[in-house]
């Protein structure tokens, strides 16, 4: 997809997601070095930051894990353990999936006909996936299981709705070893 970048009064540059094509218009010679530097920096960003969304819509999320005593407290001597960001694989399914409990084995999940794709979260637990409009189920992988502790009233796993032009932000939090 193209992202339009407006620079200065007289110049517009168009970038493709993979930098495959650059269209030039009239460029005043005294701006050339500055524009070249900008092109390089923007291209680097597009490849290194998954959240630098050149897309129109999808799901942006963070994988976290809570553990230990998470009982609400104002006792300053025992602040709760911070959420731990998790670098793992995020499995994305279309539509609703009847829940198998909080843990669903990878062996079973990989056979499910609604499996669309898998992406990875980074060391901060962040991920982004571009998706068409629709309802999706996302689970995070922990060893041989996929984990999701969020459900709908009909017993399905919790889902995410993607709508036109919108990026939905979610958190997938593992509370298996947390005590509230």
């Amino acid at each position, binding site marked *: 997809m193209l992202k339009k970048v407006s620079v200065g009064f007289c110049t517009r540059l168009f970038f493709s997601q993979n930098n495959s094509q650059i269209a030039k218009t009239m460029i005043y010679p005294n701006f050339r070095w500055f524009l070249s530097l900008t092109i390089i920096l923007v291209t680097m960003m597009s490849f290194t930051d998954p959240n630098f969304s050149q897309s129109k819509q999808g799901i942006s999320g963070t994988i976290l894990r809570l553990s230990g005593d998470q009982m609400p407290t104002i*006792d300053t001597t025992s602040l709760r353990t*911070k959420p731990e960001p998790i670098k793992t694989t995020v499995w994305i399914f279309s539509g609703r999936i009847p829940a198998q409990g909080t843990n669903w084995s990878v062996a079973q999940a990989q056979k499910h006909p609604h499996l669309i794709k898998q992406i990875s979260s980074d060391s901060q637990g962040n991920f982004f996936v571009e998706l068409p409009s629709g309802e999706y189920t996302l689970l995070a992988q922990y060893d041989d299981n996929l984990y999701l502790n969020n*459900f709908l*009233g009909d017993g399905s796993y919790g889902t995410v709705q993607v709508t036109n032009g919108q990026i939905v932000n979610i958190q997938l939090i593992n*509370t298996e070893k947390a005590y509230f």
Partner: protein
Amino acid sequence: MLDQSFNLSDSNVLDDIFQLPTLGVGSGLGRSDLITPFVRKSLQGLDSDFLSNSLEEYQLELKNRWQSSESLSSWPQDGDFLTGQSSFVGLPSSVDLAGNTLATARAITVGSSTTSYTDWVGSTDTNNYYCFSLANSGNFNLGLTGMTADADVLLLNSSGSVIASSTNGGTASESITSQLSAGTYYIRVYPYQSANTNYNLAVSAAPLAPVDLAGNTLATARAITVGSSTTSYTDWVGSTDTNDYYCFTLANSGNFNLGLTGMTADADVQLLNSSGSVIASSVRAGTASESITSQLSAGTYYIRVYPYSGNTNYNLAVSAAPLAPVDLAGNTLATARAITVGSSTTSYTDWVGSTDTNDYYRFSLANSSNFNLSLTGMTADGDVQLLNSGGSVIASSTNGGTASESITSQLSAGTYYIRVYPYQSANTNYNLAVSATSGGGGTGFNSTYGYGLVNAAAAVAQAISQPTFADVPNLGGNNWGNDMVNAPEAWARGYTGQGVTVAVIDDGVDILHQDLSNNIWRNTREIAGNGIDDDRNGYVDDIHGWNFTTGFGGNSGNVRPESALSTHGTHVAGTIAASNNGIGITGVAYNSRIMALKIANTDSNNNWINTGNLAQAIRYAVDNGARVINMSLRWSDSTALRDALAYAASRNVITVSAAGNSSGSSPGTPAYYATQYGFSVGAVDSSRTIASFSNRAGTNSSMQHVMAPGVNVYSTVPGNGYASYSGTSMAAPHVAGVVALMLGANPNLTHAQVRSILTSSAVRLP
């Protein structure tokens, strides 16, 4: 002059004599009445002078008609010319300017100046109705005078119901005085039995003059005397005088009585201590009288009278009869009063003070039992001890001030003593309530599981003095927690927590969740969104609870969680009261109501921030109708927190606190106050084994510590979602729900009774 041989028997002659012209409208008499003189034909023995006068006037052709009729009217009804029955002369008759029904009532003006109306009632006109309206409240006065026979008068409201009446006998005047609010009223004048009479009706209504003799603040309170004889004070409250304060001092303890009467709009009354805190209040609706009765110790007090709606005068009557010291209990161990302590609570009222510093009671237990004692109704600081047969103290309760005391202890068979005594120079009555329930199977209290797993089938049954409810099939699946506490057994008997409000003090509740929205408490005395503290509880628009957090969005009626990590309170609420609607889950007390009290926000590190005042939240719950308070949290200890817990207990509000998740040997704060107030709750898993993280009960058997499901508990989370969480936070709402089931079955249970029943009916573990 007539010939004295005039033949009086000729009625035609009499007619000729006495038929005078009718005086019509516009005769200049000041009335529009028609006056037709009339003489009954039963005359006998007419006086010649009478006849002569009559004939002269007739012959003069009545040049002055009014004078003629007046002279006739002035003739006596008895005397030498009128013999015979029911004779009268010169009376205006058939005068009927007033309507004969409510619908045809004559419209009259009633103002500050007296207006008068003359009419007649009798056998042919048995009702005269008048109708008037007042634009403002006023002191209405009516006088009915000038009667020659017995007539009476009624004052009616717009519906025709009698407000006041005057029914004096004979020709005595009638009168009615009444304070009336703005509106429409009727007056009915009517004859007594077969009386016929003219009357003059005079009416007026002087606008109420607001009286303000009482002070409008505590500092300017009117000093009044309150003694054994009743003293009364009349004043006014309304839109321009919203507070009337009175101040009085008692030299000795007394039984204080207050009555607020004579109101024409809704006003209420409070009794305050010397610091201005409310001791008691009376807030009946409409113009109903208010009353307060309370035992007060010596000291200074205030009375506050205030309007709820409208403007009204009132009469305040107060008295305080000195307490009569009672001493039925023995003053030494040897003379201790023998009492019975059984499964049903027995109560004893007595007094301790400067002249009676020890009250001893003695009782025996045949079996090992869960003993429970409460000391309540004090107006000064009294304390209590439980002693063994040798007089050594086993347990004690020594709360400050007038706070109730309580002792719960597992006792083996044997003889024991109770000692009640005043703290320092206190003088006070007290009520001592005791019970002892056989410990049942197992070893009773233990330091790990406390009294064991809560059992709704037994607890709710005991609450209504019935045998344990029969077992019903488990629901299974995500309802395993309900199954484990035997909630379905109570549901099968119709006990679902109906009518019970459970406060959840937490990080907010998603009150729009599909499984909670129908079970959220609604403050019916508050109008949503009008920015007015309609119920005057100190909180504006507190529709579903209150947000006690500090910072942006806090101190408001917005009780919903504000961040993705704020799921805790919604999860707790669902365990208590999620609807039984076939969606998601069902709460333990699925017909109870959740009062959402938001005490904190959650930051990105899952820590609670912007925390509010927990003691204040507890008091709000108590003051606004909650019977159970769930606290799945850990808090710093303080005197204010302890006092708030004591306050809740004194109002028979049951606090349920999570024991904590640090695998400790005893509960954390506030759960550890369960030695005196409410419950501490530990967590078990689906096999009834204590969760590794759960704090234990500890070694003090006074700790009312019980167990409930707390591992992988499925419940509601914001956004119509559900999740499985573990923790004593999940166990506590199961117990809160069971308590709600008990109170739904028997709302009269006291704090002590709930504690005793729940612990004695629990299933001993392991």
